[in-house]
């Protein structure tokens, strides 16, 4: 790559990125306040990073704001949930032949600067999926008590299943290579997908690593999770993990 690099961020000058088509998948549900700044931050971080916003049936003009910022916007006809929205993004990545896909939440909680750290294991060929964790060695993050217990419970359970230490099963800040894109485009959990995808990746013999990253508190909007949803979350994910143990998974074919 022979770019006239002066103020360009480190990303653009990394020779490993030459010819590597990379996509930021930004799922957004009613994030009209935050979406434009998320897009401009991503652009500032890496001008060659292509961006697709998956608008999951927002009612507040999220899609319009994103389109105005000049990125591709995939508008789902109604809200299908984060799992279906993310899978749509991976199908977009697959159909457009991307080599690297990075999930970045539309609410601004993921700092684009951390993408450098996030994609490092993939560029090094050490992993098929890289997950940004808020716990392993990174700056301290202390969620509310109930949430912390839930996260730790699933972290233990998942660590046991995948026989590898996993600290943050709920992080949606992830990057995958072509194999990961192919897998997720074909198979992705319906709702609350983060925990299950970790196991899914293991089951398909893909390699996963966690890297410590700092995350921000939500810059706009608010978390939409109610008590009832938290209970449903715990039950649904536990059930899916348990039943998943008895499923036979074929290893993903190359290609």
């Amino acid at each position, binding site marked *: 790559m022979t770019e006239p690099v002066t103020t360009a961020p480190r990303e653009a000058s990394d020779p490993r990125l030459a010819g590597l088509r990379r996509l930021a998948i930004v799922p957004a549900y009613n994030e009209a306040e935050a979406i434009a700044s998320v897009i401009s931050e991503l652009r500032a971080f890496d001008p060659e990073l292509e961006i697709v916003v998956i608008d999951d049936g927002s009612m507040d003009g999220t899609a319009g704001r994103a389109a105005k910022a000049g990125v591709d916007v995939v508008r789902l*006809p109604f809200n299908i949930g984060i799992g279906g929205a993310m899978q749509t993004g991976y199908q977009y990545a697959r159909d457009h032949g991307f080599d690297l896909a990075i999930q970045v939440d539309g609410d601004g909680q993921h700092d684009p600067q951390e993408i450098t750290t996030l994609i490092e294991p993939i560029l090094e060929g050490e992993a098929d999926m890289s997950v940004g964790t808020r716990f392993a060695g990174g700056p301290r993050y202390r969620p509310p008590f109930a949430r912390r217990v839930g996260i730790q419970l699933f972290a233990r359970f998942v660590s046991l299943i995948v026989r590898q230490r996993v600290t943050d099963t709920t992080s949606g800040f992830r990057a995958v290579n072509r194999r990961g894109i192919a897998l997720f485009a074909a198979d992705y959990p*319906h709702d609350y997908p983060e925990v299950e995808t970790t196991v899914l990746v293991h089951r398909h013999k893909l390699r996963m690593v966690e890297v410590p990253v700092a995350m921000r508190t939500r810059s706009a909007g608010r978390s939409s999770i109610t008590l009832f949803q938290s209970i*449903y979350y715990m039950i*649904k994910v536990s*059930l899916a993990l348990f039943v998943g143990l008895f499923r036979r998974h074929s290893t993903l074919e190359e290609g």
Partner: protein
Amino acid sequence: MTVRVSIFAAIAALILLAVIFELIRSRRLHERYAILWLITGGVILVLAVWRDALGKLSHTVGIAYPPSALFVLASLFILVVLLHYSTVISKLADQNRILAQRLSLLENDLREARGGTDGR
């Protein structure tokens, strides 16, 4: 013979739970829709085995023959499941309508973009 009824109810509940499990495993039933069924099967199983609780429960609501209470409860759960499904069907019908609308508008746009006048 209430013992026999209990055994029968327990076996029925176990079969129900096994069928639900297999349906989830083979991906013919989403976890989302399985939870109510699992609760139903679980409660029937617990009450069938734990007969003291069933006796107290039937006494409280004034049912002379405890196993009847078990089946009353089972019917109640089935009602809840059916009601839940009515809401699910309503949502699906809405989504189906939206999909049909989006698809037909899209077809129209596509025809216009192609500049065709035949309209198939």
